[in-house]
C-alpha cells in the first residue's frame, strides 16, 4: 500500500468535516466520489499537509506524513492537481511546467523527457509555450495544472476534479492518459462525472457525512443501488 489513511479526522475551526476516514491505495487508480461539500477536497488537502490532522494517521510508503509541511509531502512523491488549479499566473506555461519538476529531488535529471511527454499529451501547451498561464482559458489552465503535476513524475498523483471546465474530447484524453499512467503511478481522483471516471479507475470510494460509506471495484460501484441512484442518475 502506498497510501494508508486510518481514522482521519479534520475540519475547519469548530466545523468537523471528516470524522474517521480510513482508506488505502496501492498500485492502482482510485476514484473518490461524494456530494458537493462532502469533504473530498478537504481530505486531499489534508493528505497534502495543507490542513491539520486532528486525529488519525496518514502514511505514505509506510512513513507518517500527517503534519509534514506541503512542500515535503510534494518532495516525497505526491503531486496534486488542485481543484482551483493554483498556477503561477504571471509566469509562462514553460515556467509553470518547469517549476513542477524543479524542486522534486528524484526527477531533476529527467526533466526533458517528462516535458516531452507532457507536451505530447497536451499539444496546446506546446503551441502556447510562452504565453502567461494567467491569460490561458480555464480549460487550458487545467491542462497546465495537470501537466505541472506530471512533471513531478509522482508516485501518487492526486487530481481534484480534473475534468472541471474541460471539453469532452479532452476529458476523454485525460482519462485515457490516466488509464496509461495507472500502470506506473498510483492515482486518486475525485470527479463529479462518476460514470466517465468509473471507466478509468480500478476502484471507487464514496465519501458521505465525513466517512467512506461505500468501497469497491469500479464494477461493484456501478452496480451498487445507492451509487446508481445518487451518482449515476438512473
Amino acid at each position, binding site marked *: 500500500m502506498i497510501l494508508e489513511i486510518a481514522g482521519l479526522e479534520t475540519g475547519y475551526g469548530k466545523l468537523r468535516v471528516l470524522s474517521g476516514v480510513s482508506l488505502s491505495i496501492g498500485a492502482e487508480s482510485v476514484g473518490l466520489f461524494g456530494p458537493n461539500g462532502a469533504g473530498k477536497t478537504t481530505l486531499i488537502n489534508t493528505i497534502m499537509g495543507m490542513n491539520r490532522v486532528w486525529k488519525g494517521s496518514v502514511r505514505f510508503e509506510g512513513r507518517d506524513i500527517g503534519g509534514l509541511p506541503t512542500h515535503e509531502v510534494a518532495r516525497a512523491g505526491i503531486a496534486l492537481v488542485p481543484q482551483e488549479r493554483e498556477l503561477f499566473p504571471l509566469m509562462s506555461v514553460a515556467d509553470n511546467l518547469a*517549476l513542477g519538476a524543479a524542486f522534486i529531488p528524484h526527477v531533476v535529471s529527467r526533466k526533458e523527457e517528462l516535458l516531452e511527454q507532457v507536451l505530447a499529451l497536451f499539444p496546446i501547451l506546446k503551441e502556447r509555450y510562452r504565453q502567461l498561464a494567467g491569460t490561458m482559458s480555464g480549460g487550458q489552465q487545467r491542462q497546465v495544472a495537470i501537466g505541472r503535476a506530471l512533471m513531478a513524475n509522482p508516485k501518487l498523483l492526486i487530481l481534484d476534479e480534473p475534468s472541471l471546465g474541460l471539453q469532452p474530447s479532452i476529458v476523454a484524453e485525460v482519462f485515457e492518459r490516466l488509464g496509461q499512467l495507472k500502470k506506473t503511478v498510483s492515482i486518486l481522483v475525485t470527479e463529479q462525472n462518476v460514470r466517465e471516471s468509473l471507466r478509468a479507475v480500478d476502484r471507487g470510494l464514496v465519501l458521505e457525512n465525513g466517512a467512506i460509506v461505500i468501497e469497491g471495484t469500479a464494477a461493484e460501484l456501478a452496480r451498487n443501488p445507492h451509487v446508481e441512484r445518487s451518482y449515476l442518475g438512473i
Partner: protein
Amino acid sequence: MAVTRRTGILIVLCIAAAAIIIAWRPTVLIYGIQQAGLYAAIAIPMGLVLGIVHIVNLAHGEFMMVAAYATYFACKALGMDPLLAVLPAAAVTAGFGWIVFQLTIKRALKAPELNQLILTFGLGIVMSQGVNLLFTSQTRKISLDYVSASMDIGDLSFGIWSFVFVAVAVVYAYGLKFFLTRTTLGKAALAVGQNPRGAAIVGIDVNRVYGIVFALALALVGGMGALFITKAAIFPMVGAPFTMKSFCLVAVAGIGNIPGILGASVLLGLSESILRAFRETRGWADIVFFVLIIVVILGRSLKWSFPLKGRKA
C-alpha cells in the same frame, strides 16, 4: 478611463517646464539623476520584499541606518574605507535581517495587513531609538577625498561621486531581474510571490523563500548603508524619510515591477532637484513625494491608465 485631456496637457506642461529649467541649469539634471540613483538603490529592495513576501517593511530605512552605523564604527575602529565595508555590511545586515525575520515577521505573515504594518513600524522605532540610546543623536560623518571628485564640461562643474548610486541602482534592478527570471531559486521566489499555495504544492519551501528574499533585500540595503555614509552624515532618524520615499516609489512603479522603480526614481529625483534649484521653492522639495503618491493613488482609484505597468494583486 484614460488620462483625461486636461491632465495630459498638465503633464506636457510639466515636462516642458522641466526641459526649460534643465536647459538653463544642466546641473539640475545631473543632481536629479544622482538623487534618483540613491532613491532607487534603496527602494528596489523594498520593492522586492513587497512583491514577493507581500510585506510593507516600514523599518526599511532603519535597516539601512543600522548598516550605516555599523559601517561607521567599523571604519573608525579599523581605519578602513567604507567602500571596503560594502560587502561585509551587506552580509551582516542580511544576517541581522534573517534573524529579525525568523523572530518576528515570519509570525505575522498570515496576520492582517495592519498588524504587519504596526509590527515593522515598531521594529523601525526600536532600531532608531536603540541607536539613539546607544550612540546619541549626534550626527556622524566620515570625510573622504574621492567624494569631492568633480568634473568640468565647458563652464559646467559638478560632483561625480554620487553617480555610484546610479550604477548601484541599475545593477540592483537588472541583477534582480536576472535572478528572478533566469535562476531556479529566483523563479521559485516569483512563484511564491504569485501563488504561495501553488508553490508549496510543487515542493517549494515557501517560508524559506520568504526568509531568503527578506535577507537578500536586506543585503542590498546593507550595502547601500555602507555606501550612504561615504556621502552623507548619519543620525538615528536618517533612515525614516527613505522608508517613506521608497514606499512611494514602489507604489508609483507598481508592485512587482522592479525596473519601473528606476523610472519612478528619476521622476522623484528630478522633481526634487528642480525645486531645489530656486531659493523660493527649495523648501517644497521634501513634499514632492507626497504629491506623487497622492497622484498615483488617486489615479489608480480613478483607473487612469498610467503608462507605468502595475500588477493586479
